[in-house]
């Protein structure tokens, strides 16, 4: 187990290196600098600023310096917000995004697995068609369509929720629902497929022959194997939820990392953008590692 995790951690190093390198050079090759907007800045001040941020050094030198910083876990200072480091900005905004993403993923798993299991129990029944229909709708209604629609109905017309903001618990409902529903749809599809596959296996017949009840067959015998496709989908789902948070946090004006990333990209905040990209990459890589561990743990045929 320990060796498995160590080996996987070693494999993530090249991935993170590629991410950091790509992000660094892409951002540096952007036409236009971070201080372009402030035309009034006199040349000497601009030179000073450049020196402060190390922009006067050759590009290769900047790159090596940056990698050195990264190894120490330092993402550097922000170009736009004086006196604030990228680490600080992430630390202050990421918890919000984490809460939103966690809620969305939880909702997706809860609704998705329930709907998928129900559909698999009675394939081609009305229940199955309803579940499939809903999941198809979920797949075809992307966050940026669903979000405004939900606001229109539940915030502006029914006035059940606020249209934007992130203050009390009720403010969590619409964003988490919007972000999670697409994944609930995917999870439902995968669960249905996985459960149907498992329920057609010989060992389910064995369980029936033992006199096991339907509930026992589903929960003790089928769910573990039937959920494997869902587990392997969690990696891409987490990446998708991160991307989705850009839109959701923009629509609902939530002060999270996603909105901050989009703003920084528009502001050409070099270090901030590179830093957040690296941070997201680390996040995804670790989440995938977690998923792999769960997968091995669920499937006795795989070994650490």
């Amino acid at each position, binding site marked *: 187990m320990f060796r498995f995790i160590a080996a996987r951690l070693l494999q993530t190093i090249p991935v993170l290196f590629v991410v950091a390198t790509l992000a660094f050079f892409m951002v540096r090759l952007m036409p236009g600098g971070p201080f372009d907007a402030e035309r009034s800045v006199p040349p000497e001040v601009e030179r000073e600023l450049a020196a402060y941020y190390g922009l006067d050094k050759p590009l290769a030198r900047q790159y090596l310096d940056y990698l050195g910083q990264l190894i120490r876990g330092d993402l550097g200072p922000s170009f736009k917000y004086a006196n604030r480091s990228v680490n600080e900005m992430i630390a202050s905004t990421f918890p919000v995004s984490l809460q939103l993403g966690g809620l969305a993923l939880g909702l997706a798993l809860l609704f998705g697995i329930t709907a998928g299991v129900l559909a698999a129990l009675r394939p081609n029944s009305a229940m199955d068609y309803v579940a499939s229909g809903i999941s198809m709708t979920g797949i075809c209604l992307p966050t940026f369509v669903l979000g405004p629609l939900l606001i229109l109905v539940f915030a502006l017309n029914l006035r059940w929720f606020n249209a934007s903001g992130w203050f009390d618990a009720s403010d969590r409902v619409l964003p988490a629902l919007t972000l999670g529903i697409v994944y609930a749809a995917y999870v439902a599809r995968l669960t249905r497929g996985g459960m149907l596959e498992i329920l057609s296996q010989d060992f389910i017949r*064995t369980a029936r*022959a*033992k006199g096991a009840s339907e509930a026992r067959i589903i929960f*003790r015998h089928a769910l*573990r194997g039937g959920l494997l496709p869902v587990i392997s989908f969690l990696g891409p789902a987490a990446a998708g939820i991160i991307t989705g948070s850009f839109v959701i946090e923009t629509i609902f004006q939530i002060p999270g990392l996603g909105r901050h990333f989009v703003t920084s990209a528009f502001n050409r905040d070099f270090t901030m953008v590179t830093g957040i990209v690296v941070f997201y990459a680390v996040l995804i890589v670790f989440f995938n590692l977690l998923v792999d561990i769960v997968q091995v743990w669920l499937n006795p045929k795989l070994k650490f």
Partner: protein
Amino acid sequence: MPLLQVQDLRTYFHTRNGVVRAVDGVSFDIESGETLGIVGESGSGKSVTCYSMVGLIPQPPGRIESGTALFDGVDLLKARPEQLRQIRGKRIAMIFQDPMTSLNPYMRVEDQLIEPLLIHEQIERRRAVELGIQALKDVGIQDAANRIRSYPHEFSGGMRQRVMIAMALITKPDLLIADEPTTALDVTVQAQIIELVRRMQAERGMAVIWISHDLGVVAGLCKRVNVMYAGRVVESGLTERIFRAPRHPYNRALQKSIPALQPKGAELYTIAGMPPDLSKPLAGCAFAKRCEFAQDSCQQPVELKSIADGHNTACVRVQSGELKL
């Protein structure tokens, strides 16, 4: 009174391409402690017959159209699902063809093995595990106390079938239905498994229905045999009579096509043609189309009838005495 008495069982599958009459009027019975063989080729309805009795036919598309199966006074075919569930795995146990796929790969052997006890008996888990270890020892698994913690893929095919048998017998059932349990195994392992079942049966006195297409296995193990063809029993009787003195042309052809029983060098006998399409109604004898003795009289409805003590045939011409096989 027999332990199990099956009368006129009909199980049809309603598929998009028509109604498949998988089991079409099967009757037989089995006494306590007796071993009954059911032989026939793939698709002859021998497995469906047994699955119908214990409610393991997926419905839909399957449907039990008629019949009774009296087991100790209860009609299994009309029992409520909960009632059937209490019998299944407790009083009637099953083992299956492929031990590779019949055990749950995601569960430890321990959890699967003691499951029948946990479902059917008021028992503490600790005690159930003890019984489980004993059951593994009984079927000849070494180091049972440790092996019980393994997953199925850590066992060989023969060992898994032993686990299946231990699991089936752990509640001391009255009837064991063995659905081709040796087909997927190597010949040497086959013999061990057959021997194991024979021994367990002798020790516990349970009845066994042994389904197989391997005539040799059935001949060595069973007291009586039903020969099935196209969803019907065409001949039944004491094993010796069935094999020595076949009284149905299909059974006779079967015996002739066993290579080991024929002189060396003789050309192998094969039955011409193919089994009938079960989705088309059959008026008379299902075998008539392939039968070398068929006549017009074979188109009339057939019925299994006794021709000698405990020997039944469904061949009209044998019944009337026109045909001597």
